[in-house]
């Protein structure tokens, strides 16, 4: 087990194994997202209350899921980096953060657009949207902190600590925002909490969520490989690799 973890931590080994894994995740992501999109956009029935605007759920919910999962992954990677000093974990964390921020933005944007036909306004201080907005600020904080240090090691460790502090706070923020929302807007209709969806509605949603996760894994593998080239550019195996690729 230990040997395996440390092997996984070796950039050279990771570079080789990720090259083999990566195409599968890209294919899976493409197939799942295409199938899910077609199903969700054209075949799933319209919602009896919201009509076709309901189809925004198929991008809003996967993006929101991913936004939260990426932050948790970042914290886990930070923990691995801090405890076992595995640099790959930190490289992956550094590469995840912008995607997480982008997904948070997608969730916010789609939520806001969805608000127009549902609430008649571009922005509602809805519990879900408010939590997402705070998450976006947390992402900005981690990215900005990493960029602020001149020493790479300090930047990595500071970003790891902040990601871990943030991940402890995310559930607290989420619950307090939910609580705050019910207190101020007791009976407003919430877009995503709905009673049992029929299978034709949630199956494409599930496919989209899986597709987004595959996309996240594929992209993180790819960008971590790039980051290895950047950080280990003075290592002999990276140089030999550059010779081969040309």
């Amino acid at each position, binding site marked *: 087990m230990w040997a395996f973890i440390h092997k996984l931590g070796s950039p050279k080994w990771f570079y080789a194994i990720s090259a083999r894994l990566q195409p599968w995740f890209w294919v899976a992501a493409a197939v799942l997202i295409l199938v899910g999109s077609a199903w969700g956009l*054209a075949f799933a029935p319209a919602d009896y209350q919201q009509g076709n605007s309901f189809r925004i759920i198929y991008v809003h919910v996967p*993006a929101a899921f991913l936004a939260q999962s990426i932050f948790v992954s970042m914290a886990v990677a930070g923990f691995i980096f801090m405890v076992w000093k595995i640099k790959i974990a930190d490289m992956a964390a550094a590469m995840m953060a912008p995607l997480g921020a982008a997904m948070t933005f997608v969730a916010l944007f789609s939520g806001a657009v969805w608000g127009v036909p549902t609430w008649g306004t571009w922005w509602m201080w809805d519990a879900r949207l408010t939590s997402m907005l705070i998450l976006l600020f947390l992402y900005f904080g981690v990215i900005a902190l990493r960029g602020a240090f001149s020493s790479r090691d300090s930047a990595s460790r500071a970003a790891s600590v902040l990601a871990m502090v943030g991940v402890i706070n995310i559930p607290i923020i989420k619950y307090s925002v939910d609580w705050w929302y019910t207190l101020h807007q007791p009976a407003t209709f919430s877009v995503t909490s709905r009673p049992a969806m029929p299978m034709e509605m949630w199956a494409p949603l599930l496919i989209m969520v899986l597709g987004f996760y595959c996309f996240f894994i594929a992209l993180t593998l790819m960008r971590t490989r*790039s980051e290895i080239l950047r950080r280990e*550019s003075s290592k*002999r195996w990276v140089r030999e690799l*550059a010779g081969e690729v040309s």
Partner: protein
Amino acid sequence: MAFDSLSGFLAMGGHGVYVWAAWGVTALLLLGVVLHAHAERRALLRHLRRRVRREQHHGASGGATTPVSHQEGHARES
């Protein structure tokens, strides 16, 4: 199939603007992220190749061997 025609599909029962705006922005962002990752990787490889070639050139010219041996020391160390 929830729609009878292509125009019905595009109109989304009057909510077309919102649905297509949300989906469009999402698709653009995913695409942009992938393109950026590709460009990043290509630029890095190009940079790396240029650096390797420059160092080989230096080594062949015979002069300034010290920095090169120093560099190779790097690689051995790792």
